[in-house]
């Protein structure tokens, strides 16, 4: 009974009673997602009406990366053996699977729902609460999705580009998705404190590992480009759209139509 309570009643109660404020904010974001005009769709289809505010946040984020995130990620890599970093990353990924399960289901993507479910079951048991990635070893693909993608599938507009403090680049749609993901993550209802913090800590560790692995590319965007704000914005939007398979064909220039005289 208490199991049923934890799995079913409490989540439902939380969504409908305890977290209405957060949901309200998120719903507001979704319904008011700004609609782009034709003029703002140029230059890689970037819609950025909040550029001034965003640029301030960007310079804050950049300093945060320079003085905290990057040095800590380097230290993290030096201190921890690679194997331990992998274990922590595996744990974080496995802990994200229930959320992937829910979102895949909401997107009516049964194949990914199945993959996320079997990955979670296998890695939580045979993989010792997720530290070992047995599922990958037996060729179960790792699905990855979020509520931002669910909103995309449901037909919500992308909205404007925003740069969030600490979290970095986002769109109005993906930011609303992030909030809702926090609320509907099934693990939150199953785990009590302090266990409920472990996935969060592991995710922070995983992010540090990723920052360090992608150091070349990230540094090139943030520190070696003439306008790091524009460079990050374009890179994020392309990468996000590519993940959602929301590709804009208009950007391709037919190589036979471009004027190359003189070059």
């Amino acid at each position, binding site marked *: 009974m208490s199991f049923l309570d934890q799995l079913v009643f409490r989540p439902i109660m939380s969504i409908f009673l305890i977290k209405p404020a957060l949901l309200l904010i998120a719903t507001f974001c979704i319904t008011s997602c700004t609609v782009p005009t034709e003029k703002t769709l140029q230059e890689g289809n970037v819609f950025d009406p909040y550029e001034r505010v965003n640029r301030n946040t960007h310079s804050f984020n950049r300093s945060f990366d320079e003085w905290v995130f990057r040095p800590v990620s380097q230290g993290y890599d030096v201190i921890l053996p690679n194997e331990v970093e992998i274990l922590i990353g595996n744990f974080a990924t496995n802990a994200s699977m229930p959320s992937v399960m829910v979102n895949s289901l909401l997107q009516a993507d049964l194949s990914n729902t199945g993959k996320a479910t079997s990955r979670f079951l296998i890695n939580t048991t045979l993989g010792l609460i997720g530290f070992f990635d047995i599922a990958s070893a037996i060729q179960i693909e790792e699905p990855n999705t979020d509520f931002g993608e669910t909103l995309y599938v449901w037909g919500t507009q992308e909205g404007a580009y925003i740069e969030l403090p600490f979290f970095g680049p986002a769109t109005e749609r993906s930011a609303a998705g992030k909030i809702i993901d926090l609320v509907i993550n099934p693990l939150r209802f199953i785990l009590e404190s302090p266990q409920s913090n472990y996935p969060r800590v592991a995710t922070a560790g995983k992010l540090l590992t990723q920052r360090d692995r992608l150091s070349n590319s990230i540094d090139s965007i943030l520190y070696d480009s*003439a306008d790091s704000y524009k460079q990050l914005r374009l890179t994020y939007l392309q990468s996000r759209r590519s993940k959602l398979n929301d590709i804009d064909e208009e950007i391709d220039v037919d190589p036979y139509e471009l004027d190359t005289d003189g070059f």
Partner: protein
Amino acid sequence: MIVRSFFLRLTLLVFIIGLPTVTLSLDKSAAKLLINNLLNDINQVTTSKKSEVEVAQEFEDIFSRYSDTKYIASYVMGVDRRRATQEQKKSFSSAFKTYIARKYGKQFKGFVVDQLDIRDIREIKKWYEVDIIVKTKDGTPVKITFYVSNRTGRNLFFNMFVEGINLLLNERTEIGAILDKNRGNIDALIAELQKPG
């Protein structure tokens, strides 16, 4: 007599049906060959123990040999090409080669192509898209897509996407930003591209 004419007709039929597919697959294999050779050459440079300056030089040669440099230079300059003189276009083209080789020489250091893993080749309008998977040193797979055309009469790649990120679009943004920083002065842009660092 009936049999012969039947075979004749069959041969003709096969020929007619087969012809377009044969020429198509020939172009496809040419696109594949280009990417194959390109990656082999990149591999040779990235796995060699050459100095950073030498690596940049080798990358510049590879870039000139395998890519449609005229198209790329024109694309990344964007609308500013309209007010550039012939002289400026020429030196921009050459400076951009140096700049891109230096930049990606650094970036490609972490990549090792163990075996060529071509996933898909698609014909889009008048060009081919070649999807490949390369692995970084720590084994993370990265999807790269090359666009290949023979606009110039030779098969050359004219764009490249890394995990869905259009490198030409990013470079056009960067060039635009450098131009803005120099108040639209094209000569200053060219000088900045040639500067090491």
